[in-house]
């Protein structure tokens, strides 16, 4: 039992560790690198869950696009110095307490819902490109097309915000 759990346990430990390091490391570039690592471990979870399509999309979108954007912005702004202001210890303690309380609330909610979970795992193959492609272009074709409009709007918006204001 423990041996079969081992891949999940290793990946989960790495995920939590790297997520914590995102928050706690002092240099922003280190945070970004830990976040990339965290995304790769979450991709590993997708593989364990038989979601191959999501694994590929996750790696391409997050590690390929979003993280490059973050790193590019960070190097553009050049914040890689340690004199970044930190919050006072009071605010840090308050943040930790709030997060811990939230964790407590969510864990207690989850443990209360234990008996409505299905007891046996479905044997359907849902994570493959074939199944998800049929779903995406069948039931979800309208949201899928709207997503492309959203991405276009985001692209235009980013260019409009980012360009130099030439009139003034």
């Amino acid at each position, binding site marked *: 039992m423990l041996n079969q759990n081992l891949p999940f346990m290793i990946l989960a430990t790495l995920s*939590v560790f790297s997520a914590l390091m995102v*928050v706690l490391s002092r240099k922003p570039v280190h945070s970004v690198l830990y976040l990339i690592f965290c995304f790769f471990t979450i991709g590993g979870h*997708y593989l364990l869950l038989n979601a191959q399509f999501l694994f590929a999309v996750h790696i391409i979108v997050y590690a390929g696009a*979003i993280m490059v954007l973050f790193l590019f912005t960070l190097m553009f702004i050049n914040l890689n110095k340690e004199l970044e202001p930190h919050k006072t210890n009071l605010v*840090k303690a308050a943040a930790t307490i709030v997060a811990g309380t939230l964790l407590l609330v969510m864990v207690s909610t989850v443990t209360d819902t234990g008996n409505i979970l299905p007891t046996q795992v479905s044997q359907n193959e849902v*994570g493959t490109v074939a199944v998800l492609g049929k779903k995406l272009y069948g039931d979800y074709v309208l949201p899928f097309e709207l997503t492309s409009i959203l991405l276009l709007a985001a692209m235009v918006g980013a260019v409009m915000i980012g360009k130099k204001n030439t009139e003034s």
Partner: protein
Amino acid sequence: MNSILSVVPIEYYLGLSVILFTIGVMGVLFRRNAIIVFMCIELMLNAVNLLLTAFSTLHGEAGGQVMVFFIMAVAAAEVAVGLAILVMIYNNLRTVDIKEMNKLKW
């Protein structure tokens, strides 16, 4: 083909997602660098994505994974616009400290 869920109970994935989400919330409250606040928001989105995928596999229902796909698209759009805004804020204020971004506060 058996997935990992036949040996790992779904509660473990619930726990992992809750922990990752809480770390994201803590980061948003904890840090003053706006870029890191953005990264913590990504972390929270990923925690939810992971849980959606786990339940989608558990139920054998592809809708959950389609939702994860849409969440990823929205996250990409959000990051593109958000980082553009941050770069403009940096150009104007020469800082990305969220303490300084209080012009709209009162």
